[in-house]
């Protein structure tokens, strides 16, 4: 809760920076604020305080909030340039910070109104940020598409919430759970509501067949914002999804489990297969992000004691892997003026550091040991195995083999293809530092996954 308050204040402060002209101080201030928020948030571990029956900072919420803050911190380190070039930088700071506030709400809600508010607080800044390259037509398209599709999703979600409220008489998750505890007494519109909410949430995590917005938006938005969407937005949406379905709607699992089974299989296959045919890295990562949502849905569907810890680990592994890849993609694309896979040709010879970190990150995304990504997949598969979803695990294994194919295309381009130019790409010191830290984190999480997995 303290982190939530601090993040909101930071957002307001950054709006004031323009008026009181301390714009230059804003960047260190935000980093400091995030550090403090992280510490305050850790302090709430094991306290399990409920606020007005609206939000609950149990260990689940604290763990995901910490994860979001850590990733946000890394994101800010990566995205310094995004704030430098722009004339309206204070707006951008505050929009990002408010989006973080929304993300924190989404992982800690115990009331469906808070879920809705969280999603909206997160989404509206993202609509704006996706279009923040105002002169670029693709960026505008991305923002517009994201807005329309997002509005649709919200519509579904709201409709679902209404029906659930109508049939149970409450927005509170605990009360809804109790109201449906006796089978046979639940009005049928409740089930319709649950399914509508499932559709709404699937939009947000970009699960097939509701993923069509993702590639265009990911490609059109500024790379830094794409990275934000792939990491923080996905984490928050997944955590919210899990909180709702694995706890509140768990008793009516029969209603949604089959639907989700099919959606998971579809997401895994379409995401991975379509990614194979992409020629630009950002679009490829967009489809891979769809695929990763599929793996996480596997754990959600398992709905057992391992789901939350495995999703926590997965989102962490996926987020830091994505931070590294997007950082390198933006560096390479800036230098070469193009984010096609061929831009990476011969990178290993000109920039061994970039190529090395990219390799580690891609191996992690592909799930090859001893990286974090391997254990992430391993935990997910084990939890699905325990729930008896053997068929889905087999599909997921097949899908990850396809995944290896397209991730390795970049690796092969970096090490094998002839370089286009001799020129070494200049990389800032902080980016270098960030990449080294992230690479170490990926390996360290792969060697000692227990540190995170035993939290939940």
């Amino acid at each position: 809760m303290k982190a939530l308050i601090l993040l909101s204040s930071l957002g307001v402060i950054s709006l004031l920076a323009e008026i009181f002209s301390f714009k230059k101080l804003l960047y260190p201030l935000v980093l400091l604020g995030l550090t403090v928020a992280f510490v305050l948030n850790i302090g709430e571990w094991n306290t399990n305080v409920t606020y007005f029956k609206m939000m609950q900072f149990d260990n689940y919420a604290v763990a995901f909030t910490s994860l979001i803050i850590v990733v946000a911190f890394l994101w800010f380190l990566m995205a310094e340039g995004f704030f430098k070039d722009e004339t309206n930088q204070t707006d951008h700071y505050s929009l990002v910070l408010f989006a973080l506030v929304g993300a924190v709400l989404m992982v800690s809600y115990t009331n469906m109104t808070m879920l809705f508010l969280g999603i909206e607080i997160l989404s509206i800044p993202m609509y704006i940020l996706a279009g923040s390259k105002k002169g670029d037509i693709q960026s505008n398209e991305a923002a517009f598409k994201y807005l329309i599709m997002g509005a649709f999703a919200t519509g579904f979600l709201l409709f679902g919430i209404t029906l659930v409220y109508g049939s149970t008489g409450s927005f509170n998750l605990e009360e809804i759970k109790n109201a449906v505890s006796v089978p046979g007494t639940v009005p049928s519109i409740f089930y319709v509501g649950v399914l509508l909410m499932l559709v709404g949430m699937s939009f947000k995590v970009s699960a097939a067949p509701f993923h069509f917005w993702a590639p265009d938006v990911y490609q059109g938005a500024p790379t830094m914002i794409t990275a934000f969407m792939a990491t923080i937005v996905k984490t928050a949406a997944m955590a919210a999804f899990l909180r709702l379905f694995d706890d509140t709607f768990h008793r009516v699992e029969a209603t949604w489990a089959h639907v989700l089974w099919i959606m998971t299989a579809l997401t895994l296959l379409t995401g991975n297969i379509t990614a194979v045919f992409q020629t630009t890295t950002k679009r490829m990562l967009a489809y891979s992000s769809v695929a990763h949502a599929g793996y996480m849905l596997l754990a959600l569907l398992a709905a057992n004691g391992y789901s939350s810890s495995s999703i926590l680990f997965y989102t962490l592994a996926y987020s830091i892997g994505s931070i590294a890849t997007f950082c390198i993609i933006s560096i390479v694309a800036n230098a070469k003026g193009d984010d096609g896979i061929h831009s990476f040709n011969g990178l290993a010879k000109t920039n061994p550091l970039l190529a090395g970190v990219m390799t580690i990150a891609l191996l992690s995304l592909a799930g090859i040991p001893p990286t974090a990504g391997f254990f992430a997949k391993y935990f997910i598969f084990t939890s699905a195995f325990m729930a008896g979803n053997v068929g889905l695990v087999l599909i997921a294994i097949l899908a990850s083999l396809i995944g290896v194919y397209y991730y390795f295309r970049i690796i092969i381009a970096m090490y094998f293809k002839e370089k286009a130019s001799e020129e070494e790409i200049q990389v800032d010191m902080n980016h270098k530092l960030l990449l080294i830290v992230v690479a170490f984190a990926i390996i360290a999480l792969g060697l000692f996954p227990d540190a995170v997995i035993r939290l939940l």
Partner: protein
Amino acid sequence: MITLLLIFFPLVAALLLLFVKGQQVRNMALGAAIIEFAIVVFALTQYQQGNTTQFEVSYNWINSLGITFHVGMDGISLLMVLLTTFLVPIIILTSFNREYSNPSYFYSLLLAMQFALVGVFVSLDGFLFYIFWELALIPIYFICLLWGGENRARITFKFFVYTLSGSLLMLGGLIYLYLHTSGTHTFNIQALYLAGQSLDMAHQGFVFWAMFMAFAIKMPIFPFHTWQPDTYTVAPTPGTMMLSGIMLKMGTYGVIRWLLPVVPLGVQDWANVAIGLSVIGIVYASCIAIVQKDFKRLIAYSSIAHVGLISAGILSANVQGVQGAMIQMLSHGVNVVGLFFIADIIQKRFNTRDIASLGGIRNLNPQFAVLFLIVLLGSVALPLTNGFIGEFLLLNGVYQFNAWAAAFAGLSVILGAVYMLRSYQSVMLGETNSITTSFPPLTGSEKGVLLILCAAIIGFGVYPKPLLDIAEPSVVKLVEGVRLAMGK
């Protein structure tokens, strides 16, 4: 402690080598590999003859999933580690006759691979085994990708995906066993043995295929061998040697340690099919080897034939078969490294490996001809060379399982002699031609490697007892346990 040193010393050396510039890095790599070999020799002196697991170390690693860092060596593991650490310095020495670009990466990857290979052979935890198994793949992939020949991107990628799919199936099998361990789930090897043996025959059959696929692809067994000839041909020679000399043994070792005792009934149920495939592979690969034009490719196919016999021997699940496999793994490691090195020496001098266009080399350099002949005779299993004892025991083991299988497997000896002697005749004998005009004398490192290998071939062929004794008690214990579970 000694096991930990054995595992991590190559890794530390590999990381340090990254910071060395220039070609002198190869001397350092050689030094590191020799030190590693010395550690194994020291371990041998400390090893107490018997069937127990020694040098055991166990640390908690991932508590919540019952995964421990549990390593140790019995006779079987020790022999495999001995083979690995004996071959790696030799392989590094063979690389001295070529200059590789970015040598620090090259040697670092070689040592990193040694780290993973040793890890595979000493793991006593199913999950740890899997991790090392996968880890071994990454360095060799990059060795082939960065320093390989034509078309390497496509071929090495095929190799990578092939082996990765096998590994994932094995992981599925391991998880399945893990979920059937009693009490708190664990990946401990003994617990997995119990879990596997408690399954009924049909379920053991599923686990058998899940795990066997991984091993069969690695070895490779017909019909999962299609990645192998291309990869062996395209890889740089040291990479080919690592692949054929050591990495192939991961598969055979996996069958001995992680398949026979885990699902004995599954093995019993499916041995016909698996041995059948192995024997088909022997005949098939030998026939293809006969018509090969490229000498390196010929060796690759001969390797499929040899490993088919090893696999058939192990799967027949009797002491002779498994003990023969242990010996043949050592011999094959030494011989195949020798053969690939000879192919490399020839290619370096004449820029071709085409068997038909060579000839008369014996007239140019009789010394080389003799060394080549010794390696070749080891490979065709002439008595008093190292290949003989292994093949004899293997055929004996297979015969106990099924006489017909043994009869067909025995063809490997005859066909092996055919393609090997024919290629020797074509390459070394006859008149010199326009390509083989002159043969620069063997360099010091080349001569050194060939002499060491020939000494090993003859020494092991004449007096194999010391090495046989290391593994025998462990093999007997393992096979007896398996046969007991099979109800024999």
